[in-house]
């Protein structure tokens, strides 16, 4: 299967701090992938380079065989990559539905069309009943769902999830996992997630990449990763979440 996203040797330094060094990975169309690693390993930096927030110092990023590094975030969104933020950023003063409609307007020119798309997305994320509420009144799990709904409304081919499950209770987490599985199965949505919650990673990801000190130290299936000596030493060995 051809790679939808090809990340080749990207690096990023912040005033001498080496955040990401020579990271490479491919993501196949229709797959679910996870990027894991200890805090400060460079996961969010990689995300931000893919999403256009930062420009890589070196290396290249190609989406659907077209180079996208150096494009603005809105151009990357328009190219078909949706993202969520680790620290949720709802449009607090707008209603839940209006939040999602902003995303839907990327492909829908009319309000009526955007509303229709948004209601369908909210239905999928079990937020339809709350569409009239101001986003500021939502609880954290609902805000996380809203974040995903907004990104989905732009109709992405690749969805980047930055700790979408963090802070959720196990049952809420399982519910989200089910939503992503369903999106992947029915719409063929390709997903790349950064996650600390190993419960979600193991349940969802078909491929896992492990970052440590800004470098990819292991890539493979979940079964392979949990037995990888280097991974166990740097990461899983220190965590007790599993």
């Amino acid at each position, binding site marked *: 299967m051809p790679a939808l996203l090809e990340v080749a040797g990207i690096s990023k330094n912040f005033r001498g701090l080496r955040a990401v060094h020579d990271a490479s990975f491919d993501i196949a169309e229709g797959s679910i992938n996870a990027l894991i690693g200890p805090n400060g390993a460079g996961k969010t930096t990689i995300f931000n380079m893919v999403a256009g927030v930062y420009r890589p110092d070196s290396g290249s990023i190609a989406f659907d065989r077209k180079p996208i590094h150096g494009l603005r*975030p*809105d151009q990357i*969104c*328009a190219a078909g990559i949706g993202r969520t*933020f680790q620290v949720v950023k709802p*449009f607090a003063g707008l209603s839940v539905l*209006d939040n999602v409609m*902003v995303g839907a307007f990327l492909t829908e020119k009319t309000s009526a069309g955007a509303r229709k798309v948004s209601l369908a997305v909210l239905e999928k994320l079990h937020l339809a009943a709350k569409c009239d509420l101001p986003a500021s009144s939502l609880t954290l799990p609902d805000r996380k769902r809203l974040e995903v709904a907004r990104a989905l409304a732009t109709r992405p081919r690749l969805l980047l999830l930055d700790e979408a499950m963090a802070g959720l209770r196990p049952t809420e987490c399982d519910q989200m996992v089910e939503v992503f599985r369903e999106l992947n199965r029915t719409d063929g949505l390709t997903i790349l997630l950064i996650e600390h919650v190993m419960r979600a990673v193991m349940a969802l990801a078909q491929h896992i990449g492990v970052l440590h000190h800004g470098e990819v130290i292991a890539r493979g299936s979940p079964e392979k990763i949990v037995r990888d000596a280097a991974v166990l030493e740097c990461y899983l060995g220190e965590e007790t979440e599993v």
Partner: protein
Amino acid sequence: MIARLLEGVPRRGLVALAALLLVLLVFPAFASGYLLAVGFLILYFAFVGQAWNIMMGFAGQLSLGHSLYVGLGAYAAAALYVHFGVSPWIGLGASIATAVLAGAVIGFLAFRFGVAGVYFAILTIAFSEFARIGFDHFTWVQGSSGFFLPVTNYAANDLWNLRGSPTMFYYLMLGMTAGAFVLCHALLRSRMGYYWLAIRESQEAAQALGVNVFRYKMYAVMISAAMTSLAGIVFAFYYNNLFPEQIFHISRSIELILGPIIGGIGTLVGPLVGALLLTGLAEGMREAMLQLGIDVPGVKQVFYGVCLLLVVMFLPNGVWPPLAKAFGFERRSTDRGER
């Protein structure tokens, strides 16, 4: 088109708007010359407040230099009329072009180079001050000694050249204010309106959803500047004199933003309510003091200050949002999520 505009607007809101329009339409028949002038001022401030609200209330960009667009619009149309006899209806093209260009320059400098928040506000002040000082030395329009339009008798209303009675200006301003209201209403429920609100709430999130933040902020500045310049034209032809020290002065910029702040930033009705409250009460108080024979200079400014203080303390979202709630004028949020 009309059906789409009315969609989701509560019926009692429409009835109230129609009633308000009716009152405003028959108002000149009962009003004295003084009251008519007050009515004109209220409509004028409602209009410029609405224009300013597009930038601050919708797109979240604080402009403290809107007197720049009023002045440019006023001078452009007035100069064309005085020097070449060009009707202001033609001259408004020049007014809009000049104001939009100025807005585009300010917007480009600010949004391209990340000048945001208070620094953006300072930039807008700087440009209006440039204009004030520049026009003081602009001899084509008589510089600081003032630019005067020929005053003719008010016997016949010449709408084409905007020479006529206060009643004519009142109705002109009423038409413009109603037009601005409908335009802003339509903008708010368009894609552009949604994008503006998204930018106001979080630029980062808006950008991640495919919004070209730079472009939509530029649209906001340019549309707001164009509308404001139209108010400048009416100002010029109504008062028949223009002084850079007055029209570009920062106090004019502040004056025109008080209405929407007190009425409710980001709401459609806020600028109307704010203009009515501020101008109506301030003029009413001045008249009352005149009747009582009390002469205290600066009482209007003190009044503005007290109003602002009370609103900021007790109604931080402005006067309109709680009123809208009380009267059931709120639109269903399935149609619009404005506050």
